[in-house]
C-alpha cells in the first residue's frame, strides 16, 4: 500500500503542477495555437439575452451554444456577432475583442418583429403624469381634477384622484407636485383669482383630501416632502422655507431662512446657505449641522444661480440641480453638466444616476472611482450613452439598467446601453403630443397614450 501511495502521490503532484498553471493561463485567455507554435493571449465575448436561448452566429458560422454563452479563445480583433430568435429581429453587433479582456453583452433585449401593443383603457386621455418609483401613474381625460385618476399597474385598476362628491371635483389643474416613491400628491390649480393647493393622501382609504391653500403663501412655492413624513410639507419661497403640518393644519413660517438650495429625506432637511455651505437638520429641532462646506461647491461651480434642488442619493452623496439645468455632485469631477439637464433618476440597485438633456442621455456610475482620480478622493464615472436627441423629455431605466426608454419629440425609443459598441436604438411607439409615459420595472411594460386614439396602451418591453 505504501508503494501505491507513493506512486499515486507523485502522479497527482505532477498533475497538479502541470494543470494548475495551465488552468490559470487559460483563465487569462492564453491558448495554444498550433500555427503560431506557442501560447497566445486571447479575449472572449459574453452574451446573454432576453428571452434566452437565441442562436449565436460568430461572423458567418453558427456557434453551437445558445444564449447565455461565452465565446472564448478569440484572437484580438473585430467580430460580427448576430443573435437570432424566432419572432424577433436579428441582433447584430460588431465587437472589438482585446487580449485578456471580456466584451460582455448582458441581457441583450431581443426586439420583437412587432411590438405587442395592448390596449389598457379605451378613453380619450389628455395627460399622463409618471410617478417615479411608485406603483402607478396619473392619467386625466380633461383639465379638471375630477377627471384625474391613478392607474395602479399591479392591481390593474384606475382610481379617481378625488371622489365625484368632492368639492374639488371641478377644480382646473395647473400642476401636480409629487415625490419619488410617495403616495402624496399636491394639486395646484383653480381660477385666476382663486388658486388652491389640494393635498391628496392616497395611502389612506378612502383617500385623505385637504385644502392646504391657507398654509401656503400666495407667492408661488415649490413644495417637497419625504414619504416617511406625510404630514410635513416643505414650501420654498425664494430664499426661505416654510414647514406645513397637514395634521395640525398649521405652518411654521420662515422655518429656515437664508436658503439657496433645498432637499429632504425621511430624517433630515437639507439646505444650502448663500455661502454655498450645505447644512442639514432634523425636522425638529432646527439645529443646523454642517454637511458639506463651500470648499466643495465654490462660486465658480455654482455661480449666482438659485435655487438649487438638493437630491440625496445615498449616505454622503448629494446632487445639486440648478435652475438652468446645472448638475453638480459632491465628488470629483463635481461638475456633471453646465446646463440643460431636464430630468434625472438615481438607480440604487446599480449605484447609477441617469440624467438627460434635450439632446443627450448620460449615466454617472457611483460604484467606483475612475482610474485617473486620486485614491484618497473617490469620484464618479460619467458617460454619454446617447447624444442624437432632438427634444428628450423623459427617460426610464429598463431591465436592471441595461436599457433606457426615452421620449424624443413624442416618439418612444428603447436604447440598449452597449459598453463595447455603438448603442442600439429601437422605435417603440408614437405617443400623444405633450404627454409623458411610464415604465414599470416590476411588469416590464411601458404605458403611454396612443398618438391617434389617445387611449392608454402598454407594450411588454421585457418578457416576464
Amino acid at each position: 500500500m505504501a508503494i501505491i501511495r507513493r506512486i499515486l502521490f507523485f502522479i497527482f503532484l505532477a498533475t497538479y503542477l502541470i494543470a494548475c498553471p495551465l488552468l490559470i493561463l487559460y483563465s487569462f485567455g492564453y491558448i495554444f495555437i498550433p500555427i503560431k507554435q506557442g501560447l497566445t493571449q486571447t479575449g472572449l465575448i459574453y452574451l446573454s439575452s432576453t428571452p434566452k436561448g437565441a442562436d449565436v452566429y460568430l461572423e458567418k458560422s453558427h456557434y453551437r451554444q445558445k444564449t447565455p454563452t461565452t465565446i472564448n479563445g478569440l484572437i484580438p480583433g473585430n467580430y460580427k456577432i448576430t443573435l437570432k430568435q424566432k419572432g424577433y429581429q436579428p441582433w447584430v453587433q460588431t465587437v472589438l475583442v482585446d487580449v485578456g479582456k471580456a466584451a460582455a453583452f448582458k441581457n441583450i433585449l431581443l426586439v420583437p418583429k412587432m411590438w405587442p401593443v395592448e390596449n389598457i383603457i379605451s378613453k380619450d386621455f389628455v395627460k399622463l403624469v409618471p410617478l417615479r418609483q411608485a406603483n402607478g401613474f396619473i392619467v386625466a381625460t380633461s383639465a379638471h381634477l375630477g377627471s384625474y385618476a391613478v392607474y395602479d399597474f399591479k392591481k390593474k385598476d384606475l382610481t379617481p384622484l378625488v371622489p365625484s362628491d368632492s368639492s374639488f371635483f371641478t377644480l382646473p389643474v395647473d400642476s401636480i407636485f409629487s415625490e419619488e416613491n410617495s403616495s402624496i400628491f399636491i394639486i395646484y390649480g383653480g381660477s385666476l383669482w382663486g388658486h388652491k393647493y389640494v393635498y391628496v393622501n392616497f395611502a389612506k382609504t378612502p383617500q385623505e383630501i385637504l385644502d392646504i391653500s391657507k398654509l401656503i403663501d400666495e407667492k408661488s412655492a415649490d413644495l417637497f416632502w419625504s414619504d416617511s413624513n406625510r404630514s410635513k410639507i416643505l414650501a420654498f419661497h425664494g430664499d426661505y422655507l416654510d414647514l406645513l403640518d397637514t395634521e395640525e393644519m398649521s405652518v411654521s413660517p420662515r422655518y429656515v431662512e437664508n436658503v439657496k438650495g433645498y432637499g429632504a429625506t425621511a430624517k433630515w432637511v437639507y439646505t444650502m446657505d448663500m455661502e454655498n455651505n450645505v447644512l442639514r437638520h432634523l425636522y425638529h429641532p432646527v439645529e443646523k449641522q454642517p454637511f458639506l462646506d463651500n470648499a466643495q461647491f465654490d462660486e465658480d461651480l455654482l455661480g449666482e444661480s438659485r435655487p438649487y434642488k438638493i437630491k440625496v442619493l445615498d449616505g454622503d452623496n448629494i446632487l445639486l440641480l440648478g435652475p438652468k439645468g446645472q448638475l453638480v455632485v459632491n465628488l470629483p469631477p463635481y461638475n456633471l453638466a453646465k446646463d440643460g439637464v431636464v430630468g434625472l433618476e438615481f438607480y440604487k440597485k446599480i449605484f447609477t444616476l441617469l440624467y438627460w438633456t434635450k439632446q443627450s442621455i448620460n449615466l454617472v456610475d457611483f460604484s467606483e472611482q475612475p482610474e485617473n482620480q486620486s485614491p484618497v478622493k473617490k469620484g464618479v464615472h460619467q458617460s454619454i450613452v446617447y447624444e442624437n436627441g432632438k427634444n428628450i423629455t423623459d427617460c426610464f431605466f429598463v431591465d436592471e439598467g441595461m436599457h433606457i426608454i426615452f421620449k424624443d419629440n413624442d416618439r418612444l425609443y428603447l436604447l440598449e446601453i452597449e459598453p463595447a459598441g455603438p448603442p442600439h436604438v429601437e422605435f417603440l411607439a408614437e405617443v400623444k403630443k405633450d404627454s409623458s409615459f411610464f415604465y414599470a420595472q416590476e411588469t416590464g411594460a411601458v404605458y403611454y397614450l396612443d398618438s391617434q386614439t389617445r387611449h392608454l396602451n402598454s407594450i411588454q418591453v421585457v418578457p416576464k
Partner: protein
Amino acid sequence: MNYNYSRHNIQGKDKALERALEILPGFLSWIIIIGMLVLSIVEPLVAAVVMIAFILYWVLRLLYMNIFLVLSYLRLDIEKEANWIGRIAGVDRVQSYNQELCQLPCPKDFKAKWSLRLHCKELSDLIKSGSLPPKSDDIYHLVIIPVIKETRDIIEPGIEGIKSGKYPSSKVLVVIALEDRASTEVQNDVLAIKDLYAKKFFDFLVVRHPSNIPGEARVKGANASYAARSAKEYFDQRKILYENVIVSCFDADTVPNPDYFSCLTYHFMITPNRVQRSYQPIPVYHNNIWNVPSFARIIDIGTSFFELVEATNPKKMVTFSSHSMSFKALVDVDFWPVDMISDDSAIFWKAFIRYDGDYQTVPIYTTVSMDIVAGRNRGETFVNIYKQKRRWAWGVENFPIVLRAFLKSSGISFYQRLTYGFKLLEAFVSWATWSLLLSLVSWLPGFFASREFATSTVYYIAPRIQATIFSLASFGLIICVSLSIMMLPPITGEHNILKKIRHVFEWLLIPVIVLVLSAIPALDAQTRLMFGRYMDFWVTDKYRKKG
C-alpha cells in the same frame, strides 16, 4: 522521552510557548478565511486565481483520497471471511505454518487469494523481524468501558458482543469504569450487567472512579486511567505480564465485530514491534443508523470513510475513538491523560513522544460499531452532533502539547517532527477552512468584481473552470454513495428500497452538512482554544428506538 503531556503545571517559557501554539491553528484558520474575504474585495482577480489553484488542489486530493477509500474498503471486504482464530493458531507455530501455507494451492476466489497473499507476506515479515510473539494462550485482553450516564440498553449490546464473539471470552477481562457521580439508575444497571456476565469472562470488574481527585479534570481519560490502574494491580497480583495484555478502551455504546478480538490478537501477534503499536479498527456507526435523521447519518458515514482512508497510511495514522494497544505501552506512558478531552488521540501522541517516535498505529480491518449521537427530535440531534464534532475538533488541544515536545525532543528525528507536526496542523486548519472556502468564499471574487475585473477573461472563465472541477468532484460523491450502500447494515421494516433510494439523495446534502456540522464546529473549537476558553467534557446523548 519523559514528558509531562499536559497544558497544566508548566511555567515560564513553556507556558508562553504553549499559549502561542494554542493560538496558532485558530489564527491560521481565521487568517485564511478573512484573508480570502479581503482579497476577494480588494483584489478579486488575484482571489479568483487563488481559488482556481485551491479548488484544483482540493479536487485532486479528494480523488486521491477516493482511490484509497476504495482500496481500503476492498481490504476490509477481503478480510471479512478470514479465519482469524486459525491464523492465530498458525502464528503460534509460525515457521512450520508459513511453510504449509506456501505449499497450499492458490485459491481461485479473488478475495481468498488476496487475503492469503497478504497473510503470507505478514508471516514472512514477522519471521524476518525475528520478533516472535507470545503464545496466544498467554495473551489476555483488557476491555475498559467508561460509563457515566449510559444505561443498560446502551452498555449491554457491547458486552454481549464481546461475549458472543469468535474469540474466547475466557481470555477477556472486562472492566466497567464507573464514575462515582453516575446516577443510581446507571450504577444499578452496571451491577446488574456484572451479575449477568461475570462468569462469562476471565473476570468482570466494576471500578468506581471517585470524583474530585486532585489534578484530574472531569474527562473520560481520568475515569479510564483510574480503571487501568486497578487493572494493573489485578495483573500484578496474578503475575500476568503487561506485554501479553492488549487493552481496548471502548465507548459505552461500542459493539465490536464478532471477529474483533481474534483479528486484534492476530495483528498484535504478527506485528514485530507489537508493544509500541496501537491497533485501530474501522469505526462504523451502525447501531442506530437507520433511526437518525439523514444529516446525522451522512456525517458519521463520512467519519467512517475518513478512517478507512487513514488506514491506508499507517505511518501517519493517529488513533481515534475505540481502539486497542499494548497494556505495557499504556503503563509506560502512565495511562491516558487525566486532564484532556481528546484522550483517544492524546494517548497516541503520549506514546509517540515516550518512545521517541518509534510508535505507530496499525490499522486492523475489522469494525467496531457505535451509536450516532441522537436526540429526542431533529433539533436536539443537530445540536448534539454539533457538540460532538466540536469535541472531536477539540483534539486541536494536542497540537501545542505535541509541538512543545517536538521542539524539546532530540530522540525523534527531525523529519518525523516536521512531517507529523505539519500534518497535525494542516489537518486542523483544512478541517476548519476548506468547506468555508469552497462553499462561501469561492464565489466572492465574482460578487465583489470591480469594473476592471468584470471586463477580464478571468471573470468569465474562472467560474466555468470551477464548475468543471466541481463536476469532477461528483465522481468522488458517486464512490461515496456506492460504498455507503454496500457498507450499511440492512434496513429493518418496510419500504427498504425506498429508504435506500432516499439515502442516495441524502448525499446531495453533503456540502451543507460538512460546512455546518464539521467546518464550523472545528472553527468553533479552534477559536475557543485561541482565546483560552477551554472546553469541558460533554457526554453525548445516546437514544435508541426501543423494540
